[in-house]
């Protein structure tokens, strides 16, 4: 299995991904903190970083396990959040047809939001250049994310309770939400989901989360249709 990489492009991938990664460091620290707050075994909680490798889903899984939610509800909530990656996978499939088999199997592991944003614009590059750039930027995110979430685990317990750093968790969800709303049908989806979740909050095992999500997607589609 020859890697066959272009060093210049690997370095460019590293250089492009690094500043982008720095902006998510606080988020990574919050994940570490959420592990501590959830009361799960720290190593098991941290394993969300290498296994799930997606901040929003990690936060959801950790906070739901921490609040004693039923396993099936946690898994479905986590996977619903991750469903957007199907979009990335579909969008990148043609590009990866020009890549060797080993890379087609390994690369999707690192196809997180930022990796998609960084690499989709290089779809037309020479396959070796594309692969090199992808490897460079993926290295930044894989090592950076696992190390900073581990750091959050160590720093978290040392932060005084009075600072109420736990507020950072809903704050980051609001920030992620606003970051993703670039068209008004998405705003409709978010508002409908929020209302539906509120109205069904009495349902057991946080089922309201899934009801809210489904209602939001439907409302978003209707709003999109109306805007056509």
């Amino acid at each position, binding site marked *: 299995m020859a890697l066959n990489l272009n060093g210049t492009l690997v370095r460019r991938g590293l250089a492009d991904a690094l500043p982008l990664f720095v902006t998510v460091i606080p988020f990574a620290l919050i994940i570490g903190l959420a592990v501590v707050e959830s009361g799960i075994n720290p190593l098991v909680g941290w394993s969300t970083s290498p296994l*799930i490798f997606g901040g929003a889903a990690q936060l959801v899984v950790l906070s739901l396990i921490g609040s004693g939610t039923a396993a099936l509800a946690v898994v479905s909530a986590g*996977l619903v959040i991750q469903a957007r990656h199907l979009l990335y996978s579909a969008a990148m499939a043609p590009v990866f047809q020009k890549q060797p088999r080993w890379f087609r199997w390994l690369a999707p592991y690192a196809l997180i939001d930022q990796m998609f944003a960084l690499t989709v614009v290089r779809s037309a590059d020479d396959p070796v250049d594309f692969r090199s750039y992808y490897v460079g930027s993926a290295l930044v995110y894989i090592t950076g994310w696992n190390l900073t979430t581990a750091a959050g685990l160590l720093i978290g317990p040392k932060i005084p309770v009075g600072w109420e750093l736990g507020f950072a968790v809903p704050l980051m969800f609001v920030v992620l939400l606003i970051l993703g709303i670039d068209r008004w049908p998405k705003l409709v989806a978010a508002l409908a989901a929020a209302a539906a979740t509120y109205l069904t909050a009495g349902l057991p095992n946080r089922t309201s989360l899934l009801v809210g999500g489904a209602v939001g997607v439907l409302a978003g*589609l209707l709003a999109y249709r109306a805007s056509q």
Partner: protein
Amino acid sequence: MSAFLIILAVGIGTYVTRSIFIVALANRRIPPLVMKALEFVAPAVLAALVVSLVLRPDGSFDVGAPELAGFVAGGAAIYVKRNFLLAAILGMSAFWIVRAIV
């Protein structure tokens, strides 16, 4: 089911969502309606999540002036600057400042 098995299940599921079209279904076309629906999954689920995080078990909102200030400051920062670091700092600062005042 133990916490680790839950995490493992979400991890495997995540890899499937990221790899399925690249590894297995490269030549299949996804119905446009499904592609469109996927776009709304993230905003819908995140909004549902925020609501369920700030609701008390009795159905009332667990959001006071400090939280509201934090959401507005963090939200404005990410909307204008698209920067997580800035949003986290401003959001938490607004939260702390208002909490100290009220």
